[in-house]
């Protein structure tokens, strides 16, 4: 083993530690302020709480109440989990079919799915929310179906890239053994697609959990997800309870950090794999 140079041993770790501190700094500031009285937040945001400005958990109590945070958390979780499940299963099935049955029509559909990835949401924002209203999709179940429609582009694309590497002979063997197509897919093909399924699930979960505009437009007045609830707290023109705001920001960050620490290995792999296929 060659000896590590001084740069690698001391200077770079010091530099990286400094950068890491800079990266964490904004979240620390919010955390600190979430324990301060609301008037001391705007005036002295960078001063830690002291005996005069310490507010205990009051901000958290107000924040939870003002945003109805537990309800928002439930809807965010409900919509994210079921949308992701539906996207993973349905787009894997679609991608397998579109890759295995090659006709002009299936190629056209594939291109259409890929095309939808580039189009900005604002293009369909107005007409989509009207369509959702007309068809009665403006509820937490309906929005899951809408997420399948929006998520299918990237997901079909990622799955197709992987299906191509699944050997046809396996599927043929299953068919000869008497498997019907649905059995072949779920018993033979889908287990092989698992790594891609994890990638697809993670990328979609990150998007849907944090998505603001789609839930706001479609179900925002009746069912608020976390981002929508935060935006409502900010309100229109009235003054904001800064204390409650800080507490809610922290409450919104906690589930994400927990999710990340639990699935870190898969998330990092998923992001890298999702990019390589692109």
């Amino acid at each position, binding site marked *: 083993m060659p000896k*590590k140079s001084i740069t690698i041993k001391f200077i*770079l770790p010091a530099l*990286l530690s400094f*950068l*890491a501190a800079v990266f964490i700094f*904004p*979240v620390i*500031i*919010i955390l600190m302020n979430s324990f301060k009285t609301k008037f001391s937040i705007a*005036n002295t*945001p*960078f001063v830690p709480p002291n005996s005069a400005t310490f507010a205990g958990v009051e901000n958290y109590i107000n924040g939870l109440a003002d945003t109805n945070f537990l309800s928002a958390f439930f809807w965010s979780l409900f919509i994210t989990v079921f949308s992701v499940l539906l996207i993973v299963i349905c787009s894997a*099935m679609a991608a*397998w*079919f*579109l890759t295995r*049955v090659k006709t002009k029509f299936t190629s056209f*559909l594939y291109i*259409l*799915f890929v095309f*939808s990835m*580039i*189009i*900005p*949401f*604002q*293009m*369909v*924002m*107005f*007409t*989509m929310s009207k*369509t959702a209203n007309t*068809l009665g*999709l403006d509820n937490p179940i309906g929005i899951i179906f*809408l997420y*399948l*429609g929006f998520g*299918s*582009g990237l997901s079909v694309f990622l799955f197709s890239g992987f299906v191509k590497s699944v050997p046809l002979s396996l599927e043929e063997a299953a068919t000869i053994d008497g498997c019907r*197509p649905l059995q072949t*897919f779920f018993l033979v093909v889908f287990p092989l697609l698992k790594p891609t399924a994890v990638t697809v699930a993670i990328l979609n979960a*990150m998007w849907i959990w*944090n998505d*603001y*505009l789609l839930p706001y437009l479609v179900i925002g007045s009746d069912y608020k997800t976390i*981002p929508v609830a*935060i*935006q409502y707290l*900010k309100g229109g023109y009235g003054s904001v309870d*800064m204390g409650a*705001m800080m507490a809610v920001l922290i409450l919104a*960050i906690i589930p*994400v*950090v927990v999710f990340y620490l639990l699935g870190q290995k898969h*998330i*990092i792999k998923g992001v890298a794999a999702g*990019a*390589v296929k*692109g």
Partner: protein
Amino acid sequence: MENRKVNPLKKYFPVFVGPTLIAFIIAFFIPFIMGVYLSFAQFKTVSDAVFVGLKNYITVFSNSDGFLNSLWFTVKFVVISVISVNIFAFLLALLLTQDICGRNFFRTVFFIPNLIGGIVLGYIWQLIFNGILMNYGYTLTSNENFGFWGLVILINWQMIGYMMVIYIAGLQNIPNSILEAAKVDGAGKTRTLFNIIIPNVMPSITICLFLTITNSFKLFDQNLALTAGAPANKSAMLALDIYKTFYSKSGWEGVGQAKAVIFSVLVGVIALLQLYLTRRKEQEY
């Protein structure tokens, strides 16, 4: 005749593709087609649409509207943030593929901001920028330049970690033998970087450029939370400007839709052009 036989799978189309396709048609395809048509119409509720030809497009480009301003704001933002995000992410990736202690910890920290949603990010940085600017008697919304640089800093903070992960994956794919060979041949650090490392991570560069360009163009949540376009819509990027045209200006829905069509064409053309150019570069090496 054997290989002319119809694929037995074919009749299962409704089972396999049906659910996804129906959702896709309802959520994307029909709204997209309607959107293209409505950009040539005047309407408030879709069903009352009256065809008006190119009138909406003419309004978009007339000076009375903020579109050109937000187009220019967005283009400046995209150029600066795409360059800065990719340079910082690549440098971090280079550092974190060295044999440094604690590198997994650093990767974890740099990636976290990416998981936090745009609305939350916007409010986090709003407090920080206002806290700094307060000392000079300003707020974030007293001048659109504050909003602009605020967004640039925010997007760097958010996207650097994500792109870093992609660059790290690319760097780890370079076979060690090539790097050893370069060393034996006496290539210096700069030459190794430009002649060996960068050509070998071209696929990562392609995808990172694609992701940063499209995400910066489409930026909405962060913009809404940080400044909401203030002052006087001068810090509104295209997506926010389109949103406001739809929902805060009654009677302007057609103009909003026309803006959305122009926006889609712009993003589509630039993204495809970038993919074409960098893919070609990949093959050159």
